[in-house]
């Protein structure tokens, strides 16, 4: 599903990824763990096409298509979703308008019919309810005045509405209290734990992995995957720290 081979990338001329290789088949959840500055967020941004993140070597493909050659909105239409570590505030634009235009834009790109206003509202309400977010919040400007936890929940509501094939979730668990963490974990499972879908879960901590059990865990260090293993690897990292585990 997602195949990354020997990926090298720079940000502002600075090499950050130094040969990442990764294969996430459909139906699997892979976790990427690693210390601060190891390149986790850069990997997420490179895969979703953030401007300024330049691929210098290697490749990334999604369902056999060359990801790197696609614009961010084309990657979204192909089924890729990025859950932002710091969801962006957009004053003056309501969540409902933003999501309806986004979803319909994706549907147009795929040659599908657009969703009517009424159908969209129904979908948005049910997805908000599933994550435990008050649907009234979707009438407010995108993320403006939301707490850190509310922003992360809203990312999951977006994911539920957009219903992507593959989600890259960049520290979706950071800044969450226990209840929000449970809600977010349950959301990831119900939206993404399906045959034909995949998840790349970027996290510092083991605790989200108690709720979303990964099929594989990879350790990223200095822009390279230095170890891979099963879910037990996350526990080992939690016990011994990255320095020990990577040695």
């Amino acid at each position, binding site marked *: 599903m997602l195949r990354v081979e020997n990926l090298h990338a720079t940000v502002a001329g600075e090499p950050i990824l130094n040969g990442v290789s990764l294969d996430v088949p459909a139906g699997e959840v892979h976790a990427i763990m690693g210390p601060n500055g190891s390149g986790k967020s850069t990997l997420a941004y490179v895969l*979703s*096409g*953030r*401007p*300024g993140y330049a691929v210098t070597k290697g490749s990334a493909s999604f369902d056999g298509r060359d990801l790197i050659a696609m*614009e*961010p*909105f084309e*990657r*979204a*239409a192909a089924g890729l*979703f*990025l859950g*932002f570590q710091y*969801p*962006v505030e*957009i*004053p*003056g*634009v309501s969540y409902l*308008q*933003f*999501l309806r*235009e*986004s*979803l319909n*834009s*994706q549907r147009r*790109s795929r040659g599908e019919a657009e969703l009517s206003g009424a159908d969209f509202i129904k979908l948005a309400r049910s997805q908000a309810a599933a994550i435990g977010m008050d649907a009234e919040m979707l009438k407010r*400007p995108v993320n403006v005045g939301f707490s850190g936890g509310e922003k992360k929940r809203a990312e999951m509501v*977006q994911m539920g509405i*957009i219903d992507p094939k593959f989600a890259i979730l960049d520290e979706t668990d950071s800044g969450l209290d226990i209840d929000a963490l449970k809600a977010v974990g349950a959301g990831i499972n119900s939206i993404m734990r399906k045959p034909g879908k995949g998840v790349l879960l970027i996290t510092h901590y083991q605790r989200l992995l108690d709720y979303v059990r990964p099929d594989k865990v990879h350790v990223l260090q200095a822009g390279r995957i230095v170890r891979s293993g099963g879910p037990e690897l996350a526990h080992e990292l939690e016990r011994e720290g990255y320095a020990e585990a990577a040695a």
Partner: protein
Amino acid sequence: MTAPFPTRKQEEWRYADLDALQPVWEQFAEPERIAVLPGQSLEQVWLPSDDAVQVRRVNVSLGVGASFRMFALNTAEQYGRIELEVDLAEGAQFDFFAANIGTGLSTNEIVSNVRHLEPNGRSRQVVRSVLNGKAVGSYLGKIEVARGAQKTDAEQSVKAMLLDRGATANAKPELEIFADDVKCAHGATVGELDPMQLFYLESRGLAPPDARALLLEGFITGLWDSAKDGDAICEAAREALKRVVE
């Protein structure tokens, strides 16, 4: 007798496109007059036409306790000018919400002179400019508070968004105050679209022009909210923004 043709040495014509104005000057030389009688209220929505040059010059006089609300979209292809002289008597209220949306080589400007002649008047001017290419968008706004016009509350909020390096925004709020118990707030900012906001929208599936249009809609949002009949101007502004992001 026609008024003399303006020159750029006059402050209020400083950024004007006088070449574009020349052929149509005679029909605009004499400003239109609007009087709102004491205690009355009036609302006007000015929609753009298809003319390449669009000029509106208005003298407004507001009687005691009168109120005038005005909504304007300035988006001429070559030269658009909205010029307001507003006199407020005691307790009068003036609200002005406008956008300059300019593309290519256009010049769109708003020039206002709001005179608080008596106490307890309130005026509010909110102007947003969105400019691409080599377009120029200007707001020159003067507020005069006469001696004795105590408790005047005057506000000017001016923001511009530049989409290209060649675009120009001029903002010049100006205050002349001869009373000592007044509130006169003014703010002006010039900025460009935020790359992170654009990426966020694009990552959700919006093509770059749609993402820019949505951000710009957010930028001018609220301008028309208080209009009783704001649908037409809202739609016209949306169309104008689409042309700007193409």
